[in-house]
């Protein structure tokens, strides 16, 4: 059975990620951010998802405990990785990008325009409605990453590493109101099972 654990970083919807994956027939449960890569290997993790949380990412030296642990995982992980909301921002900062307070924070439904249907957003062109809940946003994408989607008020709704199977989304594909969100997970599982 395919195993894709979820790193719990205190977000409201972290549980829903596990639930969505379970509904797709995947073995999935929440793990603390302090889980190490060798522990992940031992449990046979084929991919990893990191959820959202209430923390703020400003620089890599001033992170909360769980984000600092999550950053460790981001730097060491060899299996496919999907980062959602605050960990999408963390992913950017970890690779040299920048996160700051959003000019227009987004809460609730927003229209996501897909510019690049690459892997994770496959089948989602030209646009879809996704639910958001963020005060901060990525203001500078890290080099080596490609931006895949945007919304009118947020330029980097999704990005991927040019060569690694590492993806980030600002919106919440795990909530039921993002009706096409399950497609994002199916796409990610396509990479995981590759």
């Amino acid at each position, binding site marked *: 059975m395919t195993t894709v654990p979820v790193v719990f970083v205190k977000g*409201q919807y972290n549980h829903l990620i596990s639930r969505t994956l379970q509904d797709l027939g995947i073995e999935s449960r929440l793990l603390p951010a302090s889980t190490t890569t060798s522990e992940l290997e031992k449990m046979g993790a084929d991919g990893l998802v990191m959820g959202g949380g209430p923390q703020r990412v400003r620089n890599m030296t001033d992170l909360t405990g769980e984000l600092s642990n999550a950053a460790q995982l981001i730097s060491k992980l060899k299996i496919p990785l999907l980062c959602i909301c605050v960990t999408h921002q963390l992913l950017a900062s970890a690779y040299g990008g920048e996160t700051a307070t959003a000019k227009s924070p987004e809460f609730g439904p927003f229209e996501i325009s897909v510019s690049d249907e690459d892997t994770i957003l496959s089948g989602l062109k030209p646009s879809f409605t996704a639910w958001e809940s963020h005060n901060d946003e990525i203001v500078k994408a890290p080099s080596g990453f490609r931006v895949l989607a945007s919304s009118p008020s947020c330029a980097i709704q999704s990005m991927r590493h040019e060569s690694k199977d590492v993806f980030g989304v600002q919106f919440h594909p795990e909530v039921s*109101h993002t009706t096409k969100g399950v497609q994002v997970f199916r796409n990610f599982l396509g990479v995981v099972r590759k």
Partner: protein
Amino acid sequence: MVSAQVQGFHPASFFSTQTARLRDTVSGKKALAAISGGVDSTVATLVAKQALGENLVPVLIDTGLMRLDEPEKVKARLSASPIDLKVKLVRAGGRFLDATKGESEAEAKRKKFRETFYQILRETAQETGCEYLVQGTIAPDWIETQGGIKTQHNVLEQVGIDPQTTYGFRVLEPISELYKDQVRKLGTYLGLPNDMSGRQPFPGPGLLVRCIGQVTKTKVQLLKSATKIVEEKLAPYSYDQFFAAVIETRFDVSLPSKQLRETAASALGLPADEAQVAIFDQPVTGVKGDERCYGRLAGVKLSDESREAYGWLPEKLQQVQSSLVSKFPEITRVAVLVKEKRGGGPFSIIVRAVSTRDFMTAAASPVSWKVLKDIADAVLEIDGAGHVHYDITPKPPGTIEFE
């Protein structure tokens, strides 16, 4: 590929695992089950009943904050076939009003409620010789409490309160990993009639969290009458949850009224003088970016002509809501004025109707303008009601309830 319906949650195996676990834990002792008639506590009690039989004592606390005649109706319904639960009804209305007297802050009210609730359960457990308490905590309850969004009345251990030393019983939560839709499936599996397994949620603290700000007898009475009207008028539609809340019609004038008005009007594509925005004085609960946000409720009033012309355009109103919340960090929720009564009472009734699968996110339902006006006409007949608003805030940034 196997369909999502087949994967995931299986009521039968969940049920047998949980009953075995309960039997093992309680092992011949007695357990109290706190039941409100809501689907969560009813399903948790039914699971425990199957596991523990006569050693389970279901108790219903009349908090004085349930709906009109609700305690009696619930007791009668639960006692009848096919549920057949012998429910002990404990009258404690006065104690909850006393405990929350003078308190207007949402979290303080919830904590006072929780303390009173468990004190009563402690007394009942002592009287009946119970060493355990079964309760219907579900996943969103403890996720929101742990995340600091709001204090749920039934979450103790997850927030570091040891019930054994504080209240003298151990807490058992057989459905704490489930979401609402899974609880409903389990209820159906256990033979709960559809109207009960599909019943819309009613929060444990009841009308306390819909009585925004201070809880007084007057406000609770007005709210009980308004609740009856809203529930009856919206019952024919398939909204997942719908109810009324009450708030003092008192406004905070410290926010820039011109900018508020311009933001609302521009989202609607109207001249600035056709929209007015008033900010209620009493804060309400919301959630922004995974953080609890005890913020402001904005009341938007459109001119009669625009309102009639627009009728009810959910997309436009959604834009008003999202522009106001995005531009003014202190605003969490937005409601549209449906009707006001000249010389009416000092309170506003806020109508809320949402669609949601698991109560983690929710969309404001597109209730028709005609239905809203019908509701407003009836509500404004009640003593004390002066204004009727409709809440157009999704979750996030709002929550489903107001406190």
